[in-house]
């Protein structure tokens, strides 16, 4: 059952080939058996899941089942779940049990999905390797000495290891696409404002966006149908009808103009990755798409701009973790300042502290214009690059990451080496554009991702191209050894 796609599971449930309780129990058993090898899931909600599955079976029997009725999924531990610990991968929230649900969580509940538990992640979504989690690193199911990517590494590894057919994730600078690429699955970061951020713990508010992870583009479409919504609780959520992302999956891509940015094939790109991405582009060309070389001249500036803007926003977003109203509080504070300073020094990990300090620096008196102000201007230039490109092409494609999964600890002591992992993904967050990653090959038996960037609210076209690619290739069906 765990090798079936969500589309197949929906069909199986509706045609009573198996029940949701059977399915849910199967995945719970798999998590119990395999998760210790990967550390992808940090909270298992077995009891609630079986209860939800029982209810789903009743609705399926009654014939009034909503879209994802009875389908088991996992939530990234950044989405608040009423009554279930939501840690954001941090000691700071190790004891935090929210009394409310994120809108995304509500949407899946409405759609009848069964939540198996919560997935591991880089602390407060800050990282590209899942090494910063308070709960220990997630291991890549393709090579357990390698990282799964981050920050949604738990969701990606869980889907790759078939611990769940799909999972929610979030992406601030590549946190859906990079782990999807490194774990050989499909992941989509929607247009900023497409998915509600209510109840999704903020890292960098103007960049964060929730999105789905699954093995296929078809499944991502099914999940996005449920995940995307207009939400009046999020001022930045766009009031715009959610199309049926499944409806156009089978359209022909003949005549589709695909922009290939020359900057995305520069020196830092692993040759094996480049070969895989080029052959994926050739496959799409063979299907009738037209490849157009384009330029995104300010691409190289996206990483420095991002590492001003994201930490600046984070430095304010994380001020609320002060040990007063919820979460971690240090032992025996001697006064108020001690309460603040020790709670935050003990509750936050090193990378989170570093980003808070950087953000504080970039916003502080005398530095604001040179850093924050400048970065916001560069952000505009990056957006203009894309706007110009989309005048000529329908989609932009290239590699998701510079290389396949790397070994734990291999990025050394310099945080910047890790930051460059997101060099191809960050620009879309700065511009607010949708992006996805689709498995397109193996290098040293480790997966490689093709990145697809769309224009605003053009997720349906991206999913269509990805689905057509997957109809003609098998990379999305490849599985780590012993996990099929």
């Amino acid at each position, binding site marked *: 059952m765990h090798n079936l796609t969500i589309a197949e599971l929906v069909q199986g449930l509706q045609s009573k080939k198996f029940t949701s309780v059977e399915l849910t129990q199967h995945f719970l058993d798999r998590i119990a058996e395999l998760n210790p090898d990967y550390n992808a899931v940090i909270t298992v909600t077995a009891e609630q899941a079986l209860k939800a599955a029982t209810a789903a079976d009743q609705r399926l029997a009654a014939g009034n089942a909503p879209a994802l009725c009875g389908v088991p999924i996992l939530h990234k531990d950044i*989405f*608040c779940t009423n009554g279930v610990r*939501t840690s*954001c991968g941090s000691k700071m*929230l190790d004891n*935090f049990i*929210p*009394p*409310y649900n*994120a809108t995304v969580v509500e949407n899946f509940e409405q759609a009848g999905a069964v939540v198996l538990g919560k997935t591991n992640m880089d602390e407060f979504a800050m990282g590209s390797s899942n090494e910063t989690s308070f709960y220990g690193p997630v291991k890549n199911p393709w090579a357990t000495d390698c990282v799964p990517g981050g920050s949604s590494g738990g969701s990606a590894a869980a889907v790759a290891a078939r611990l769940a057919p799909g999972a929610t994730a979030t992406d601030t600078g590549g946190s859906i696409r990079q782990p999807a690429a490194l774990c050989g699955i499909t992941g989509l970061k929607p247009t900023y404002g497409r998915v509600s*951020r*209510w*109840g*999704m*713990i*903020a890292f*960098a*508010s*103007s960049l964060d966006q929730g999105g789905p992870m699954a093995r296929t583009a078809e499944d991502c479409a099914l999940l996005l149908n449920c995940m995307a919504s207009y939400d*009046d*609780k*999020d*001022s*930045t959520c766009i009031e715009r009808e959610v199309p049926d992302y499944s409806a156009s999956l089978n359209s022909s891509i003949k005549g589709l103009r695909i922009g290939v940015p020359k900057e995305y094939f520069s020196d830092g790109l692993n040759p094996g990755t480049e070969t895989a991405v080029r052959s994926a582009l050739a496959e799409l060309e063979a299907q009738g798409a037209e490849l157009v070389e384009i330029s995104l001249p300010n691409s190289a500036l996206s990483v420095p701009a991002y590492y001003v803007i994201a930490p*600046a*926003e984070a*430095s*304010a977003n994380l*001020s*609320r*973790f*002060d040990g*007063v*109203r*919820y979460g971690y509080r240090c032992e025996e504070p001697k006064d*108020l300042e001690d309460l*603040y300073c020790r709670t935050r020094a003990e509750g936050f990990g090193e990378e989170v502290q570093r980003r808070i300090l950087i953000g*504080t620096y970039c*916003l*502080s*008196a005398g530095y*604001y214009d040179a850093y*924050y102000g400048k970065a916001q201007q560069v952000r505009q230039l990056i957006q203009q690059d894309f706007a110009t490109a989309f005048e000529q092409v329908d989609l932009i494609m290239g590699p998701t990451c510079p290389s396949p999964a790397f070994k734990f600890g291999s990025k050394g002591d310099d945080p910047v080496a890790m930051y460059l992992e997101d060099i191809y993904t960050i620009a879309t967050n700065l511009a607010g554009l949708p992006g996805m990653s689709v498995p397109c090959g193996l290098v040293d038996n480790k997966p490689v991702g093709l990145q697809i960037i769309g224009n605003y609210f053009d997720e349906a076209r991206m999913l269509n191209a990805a689905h057509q690619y997957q109809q003609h290739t098998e990379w999305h069906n490849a599985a780590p050894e012993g996990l099929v």
Partner: protein
Amino acid sequence: MSNWDTVIGLEVHVQLATKTKIFSGASTAFGAEPNTQACAIDLAMPGTLPVLNKQAVHYAVMFGLAIDAEIGKESAFERKNYFYPDLPKGYQTTQLEKPIVGRGQVEIQLADGSKKNIRIHHAHLEEDAGKSLHDGNFRHGVSGIDLNRAGTPLIEIVSEPDMTSAEEAVAFAKKLHSIVTSIGICDGEMSQGSMRFDVNVSVKPRGSDTLGTRTETKNLNSFKFMEEAIAKEVERQIDLIEDGGSVIQETRLYNGDTKTARSMRSKEEANDYRYFPCPDLLPVIVSDETIEQLRRSMPELPDARQARFVEQYGLSEYDAGILGSDAPMAAYFETVTDQSGNAKLAANWTMGELAGRLNNEDISIGKSPVSAEQLAGMIARIADNSISGKMAKQVFEAMWAGEGSADEIIEARGLKQVSDSGALEQIVADVLAANQAMVDDYINTDEAKRKKKLGGFMGQIMKASKGQANPQQVNQILLQKLNELL
């Protein structure tokens, strides 16, 4: 004459009279149990997000219209970062670069009748903080945090340093109070913190163009405290400089109970607020249509109302100034006038007996034990001579004590003034007959001095009538009868 000029600027925090918080749907009602009106957003629970209250925006625009200011058709929110337990997010959401209200001005009138314009630099929307309670039933050495007030919408009005004395500053503060209560955007309850003043004070040698170093005295919540705090601060600064010292820029706190001020424990770096645009909120657009709609529905401003009171009710400038500046009092006065048909008496009683009594007992006019309808009922009885002014005071007391309407009290106490001339003639005749010695004395007194003897008869007559005789009528009858005896 002092050798020093004083320069004063004000920052005024006005709580807007919305039903809910600026960014959440939690109630702003005053006086609730601690933290019962602090929702997930107000508590800055992880993942929560702000959505702006339309009424707060409209109220801010109305203030802008009231002071004839430029309205920020596109305004924006920023985050002001600092740690404090009553500030749950660790930043205050406020406006800096693009406030909703731009430059404007307010005219004040001073005791000598002179007028002066005070320029408003801008006014912006922001959220209030919660409260730290230092003395409670809880353990020693801790403070309790109540976040009910956190997120209450405020406008912060920032003046130019155009005031040169405590008197001007108080006049300006009172004028703002009058404006915001008149247009109904603030309840004006100072004791509940609905309006709070931060006062920037500096001194400079008389006639100098160079401003001195200023201090900021924060969070004054009464006009009286403000006046005292300014006077003390001006004196402190002058003494300091004259003794060869210099003023340091600092934030000060004034304690109205002990009448002392002190410097707040200040940290140099605490002043780096790291403002940046709030990414959770988008640009706030106020359309011309909305502005026009609000302009059309604006309640009467105090200046216009004062002019109307002179015109419509024939009040003096002085009376109109007092009654017209305070919106609830103006409304009360107009109700009394409408229902009693006597503006003069309505003005006298509202400003006199009623205002005095309310002031003494520290009650707002909205909670007056004597309603406008009750006072009007009493004034009608004065006007038709049913009761005398002296009786009216008794009636007022009884109404204050909750004994009912004027008519009910007059009836119950048998206070009705006797104006029936037959009855009065009889009383006067009886009194004269019973006091022959006084009558003889009157007759034998010099004509010029007889008037002084009338008081004795009046006292006897009022006593005989149990105080109910109409004094003017009695006076007339008495003179007539005595003259007949001459």
